[in-house]
């Protein structure tokens, strides 16, 4: 669309230069979203597209919209996406097995349909017509004009949307909230429990990994004063995963010493 606008002469040269520098990058990034194997890379490319769009908005004199696009979409929404992707799996890449039959065909049909719809709509609205109304809309300042529209003409829609968002946020909180059966043990409770326990061996905390051993890595057990490994010094997760190094090689080899 902007290409046509350039030919029609309604776009200023710096704006056209900006467009031709950034638009190909945005398209490449969009393709990259589909091609990237890691979900985090896709998310990053999406963030890049959002920033590019914000720059376009600013170039089109929609300053407030551009800045808010960065704050809300890039800063908040994409960041939450990234959060989830990172927490779900640090190294997980998408599974390439297709479970739904005819997924590709229907996806292509839907994409072509949506694209055709958008192109025809936008084209009918802008093709062969020069854009009007920007000067009058921005007359009293971009922010002021937007505020006037939002809080007079569209105030009802605005309030309804905000009510919807608050409801959604509350719903998410209700779904994610779980009633605790017992109150959570705090530091003091845990300390008391250690001292009132059956044995006072762990009263001062569990032994650190690798203490007195020849290595101090987390997967190497500590050695007790008699030279035998202390099983409590290793995280049970590591043990279950099989990431623990067998402690035998770290035991003091007393027999050899005696022979010598």
């Amino acid at each position, binding site marked *: 669309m902007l290409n046509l606008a350039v030919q029609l002469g309604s776009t200023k040269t710096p704006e056209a230069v900006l467009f031709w520098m950034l638009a190909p990058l945005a398209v490449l990034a969009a393709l990259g979203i589909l091609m990237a194997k890691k979900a985090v890379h896709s998310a990053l490319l999406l963030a890049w597209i959002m920033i590019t769009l914000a720059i376009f908005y600013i170039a089109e004199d929609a300053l407030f919209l551009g800045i808010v696009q960065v704050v809300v979409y*890039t*800063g908040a929404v994409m960041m939450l996406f990234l959060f989830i992707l*990172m927490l779900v799996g640090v190294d997980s890449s998408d599974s390439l097995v297709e479970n739904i039959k005819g997924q590709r065909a229907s996806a292509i049909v839907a994409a072509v349909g949506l694209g055709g719809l958008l192109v025809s709509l936008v084209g009918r609205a802008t093709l062969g017509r020069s854009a009007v109304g920007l000067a009058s809309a921005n007359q009293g*300042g971009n922010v002021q004009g937007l505020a006037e529209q939002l809080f007079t003409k569209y105030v009802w829609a605005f309030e309804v949307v905000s009510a919807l968002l608050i409801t959604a946020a509350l719903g998410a909180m209700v779904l994610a909230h779980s009633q605790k059966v017992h109150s959570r043990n705090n530091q003091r409770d845990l300390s008391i429990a250690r001292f009132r326990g*059956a044995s006072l061996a762990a009263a001062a905390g569990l032994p650190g990994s690798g203490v007195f051993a020849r290595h101090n890595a987390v997967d190497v057990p500590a050695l007790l004063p008699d030279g035998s490994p202390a099983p409590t010094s290793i995280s049970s997760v590591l043990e279950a995963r099989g990431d623990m190094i067998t402690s035998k090689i770290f035991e003091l080899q007393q027999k050899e010493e005696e022979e010598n």
Partner: protein
Amino acid sequence: MNASDLLGTDPGWIILVKGLLIFVFCVVCTLLAIWAERRWVSFMQQRVGPNRTGKFGLLQSLADGVKLALKEDLIPKAADRIVFIIAPIISATTCFMSFAVIPFTGNVNLFGHKTLMQLTDIPVGVLYVLAIASVGVYGIVLAGWSSGSTYPLLGGLRSSAQVISYEVAMGLSLVAVFIYSGSMSTSDIVAAQHHWWFSVVLFPSFVIYAISMVGETNRAPFDLAEAEGELVGGFHTEYSSLKFALFFLAEYVNIVGVSALATTLFMGGYHAIPGLTFTESWLGGWFTMVWFVIKLIGFFFFFVWLRGTLPRMRYDQFMKFGWKVLIPSSLFWILVVSTLRVMSQRNENRMVIAGFTVGIVLIIVAITSFYESAKRKQAILDEVGEFPEPSFPVPAIPNIAISQSAISQNAKEQIHD
């Protein structure tokens, strides 16, 4: 002629010169800030601090920078190479960008051209700073993720959660400034503080901003993202050499950035302190920059002072404080400010305004006193509720029965009071 009109007449080369000057200013500020921080903290801890390299040790940070650059550059095997390299670049570039809208001086003469030391003036300048800050978080998050290691990931997540939550409080604290100045452009906000600084008029906003700017920059006592006792170095654990230097640079430029924004929004920007306004015309207007830098140094000293004084907060307390104290109180304050603003715009009777203000103060006092007394009662109840029945035989501890009954007796009396 207002600031944006004046800036609109800048030719291209002036814009380039200004950009370069701002960059040099930030880098020099960083070098001096690291040195000053180490000297000040040493002074507070009764040490000497770096004093060998150059006069008073002034060249210490330069030497450290060269040392960092000459170190071996490591990329862990498990790291995601591209993102690992991009992350410090994002951090180090975004931190400079917010300075574009900060006004350093009033009208001055730059190489024979009449202008201001401000790169650009946009109607949503302050929002632009917030937007840049939110992009800057990407550097930290990606650094944590791409390192392919546990501690950096945890540090990255912590610090981004922290920056996002404190950015909300920061944004809310700025709303009162927007309402009072009637604009979101930095130069208009400075102009609106000609008579009274907003740190006086909007004191609660100023306090909230001052707290959230420390949280936003991951500095002590809110430096949980790099709590060395828990997370080694946090998001930059796996970084070395110049990449680490970029994060280091970004941290200090960000501190200078939030301080500059605080100066602009709350301390009258480049204006002189009241009573010394005649100094603003000295050196052809360039003396205003001295005032700006003095206020900037004041804020930076505040950062160092906090670091030298306060221990690190616990993470849950920190998040609770952000979401349950700072954000609700700034929302309440916005309500009060906008009501007062509307009253004064409608020329309401002074008695009405005074009555409203007194009412608000009374409500706050009532709520806090109720809260305090409830907390005290709860504390007494907790004291009594302790000592659960042990699940195994325990020899009787002498005096415990007496003291326990004494406590509960005492508590009952206090509650009945």
